[in-house]
């Protein structure tokens, strides 16, 4: 997993931490664990995954124990999500719940224990993705925030801000079209996938914009050259781990 054996002595018993996390559902303070948590957010085509992967390489090259966790990737849950998407069984409510289940499994099984163990944890999408998408699908804002009451507050949450048209251009260059739920086709906004994507992602951007002050998201201008963005990201990350010498793996 990219962390030294010594770091695992913190143990993987996340029970107490989960209890602590869910019992402080409303007041989401920064976690008290030795590890650091950096997350990237933004609409599809914002380039956030590219930036996170560059950050990952850099942290590793500097000797940190780094672990990566991706949205929608829990081995226990992802088959159910896949089934729901393939058969179009998901409503806004069950879409929201199954994604929170996936996130909970990753939180309980890896994110929390690894933070306790002192790792640098990188997440491609975090609870803010759910706040943006689920609310854009019509779920109650407060209900969705409560649902993620067990989530750990990240050390830094980067929001890659990009105009809708730029993101659409990037996506269309890279592949053929849009997937059903990704384009918000379940909402019946438009029969045309591209138009539906445009409307749905527009709503998502509105939600992200509201979250910048609400959660103190760190905005990165995702229209800038990749290298410039990465330099900023590294500067910010560095300022949070410079004192965390114990995170470095011994060569």
């Amino acid at each position, binding site marked *: 997993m990219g962390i030294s054996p010594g770091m695992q002595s913190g143990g993987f018993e996340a029970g107490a931490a*989960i209890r602590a996390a869910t019992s402080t559902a*409303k007041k989401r303070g920064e976690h008290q664990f030795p590890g650091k948590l950096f997350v990237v957010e933004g609409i599809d085509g914002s380039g956030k995954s590219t930036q996170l992967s560059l950050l990952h390489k850099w942290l590793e090259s500097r000797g940190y124990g780094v672990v990566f966790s991706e949205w929608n990737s829990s081995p226990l*849950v992802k088959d159910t999500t896949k089934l729901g998407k393939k058969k179009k069984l998901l409503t806004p409510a069950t879409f929201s719940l199954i994604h929170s289940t996936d996130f909970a499994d990753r939180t*309980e099984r890896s994110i929390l224990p690894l933070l306790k163990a002192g790792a640098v944890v990188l997440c491609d999408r975090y609870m803010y993705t759910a706040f943006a998408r689920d609310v854009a699908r019509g779920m109650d804002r407060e209900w969705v925030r409560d649902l993620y*009451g067990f989530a750990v507050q990240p050390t830094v949450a980067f929001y890659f801000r990009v105009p809708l048209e730029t993101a659409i251009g990037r996506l269309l260059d890279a592949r053929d079209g849009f997937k059903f739920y990704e384009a918000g086709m379940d909402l019946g906004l438009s029969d045309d996938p591209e138009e539906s994507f445009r409307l749905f992602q527009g709503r998502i951007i509105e939600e992200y914009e509201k979250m910048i002050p609400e959660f103190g998201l760190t905005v990165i201008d995702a229209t800038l050259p990749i290298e410039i963005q990465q330099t900023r990201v590294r500067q910010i990350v560095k300022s949070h781990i410079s004192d965390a010498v114990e995170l470095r793996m011994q060569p």
Partner: protein
Amino acid sequence: MRETYGKLLPGMDLSHVSGKLIVIEGTDGAGRTTQMELLKPWLEELGHAVLDTGMTRSTLAGDGIRRAKEGVNLGRVTQSLFYATDFVDRLENEIVPALRAGFIVLTDRYVYSLMARAMVRGTDPQWIRSIYSVALKPDAVFYLRLGIEQLVPRVVFSRGFDYWESGMDLYPGQDMYDSFCNYQAALLAEFDRLSEEFKFETVDAAADARSVFSQLKVKILALLENDSRKQFLSMLAMRAAGGFMPKAEEDAIAAAARKHSVTRDLELVSQPFAAHAPNGNGNGHGAIQHLKPSA
């Protein structure tokens, strides 16, 4: 008008929900399944359309939960949310559509069991309540209550120990028996608390299945009859006021009256029902007999 416990899911229309939602709750070994199996055919015989549902029966999440429980690495929060997914899938796709179509929905466990399991596992009560604020308030919750001294032998001697039923995820390191006793006692305490909060109707599940069934029948008939009595009274009120009632509605009420006059002949109805009549005159049937339209 139907209500939820606080939040309404998008697209959920509760304006014309005419069916009845009846919940059978209780710990493991309380005989819920047996009663479900007795109640469904009985209600159908009385002419009611019945949908029965229960945990992990959703198309979306049922198989996923079963697969996840094959191993022993399903965390507490994940478990709660997986079950919530299963519940909401059934709420949206089974329970509410059936209620709108006028069915009686019989459910083996409801959100209370899920809350109890989560709270016993140490999750924040406010968190789990917030999730289930989207649940529909049922017409009745029958809590089949079994004391811990009866519960333990009933489960242990009939089907042995199950990892999750024994709460082994909560008390690792204990043997299955000790863990089972601790877990079930904690659940029972939680159920008793919920029973007060949500006004369950407690049925003593220590009695034999047949007498539990009889008690449930009496309570359910009262619930159904209450409703048709209200219809009669509103019809009478309209007539007295010289109001006009559509023919179809009048026919429906006459049909309901016929149906319930049949139920009156069934065993167990006459005496116990009178004792349970909620209108205070101690004669639940009187009203119906006198108000019955002279067809």
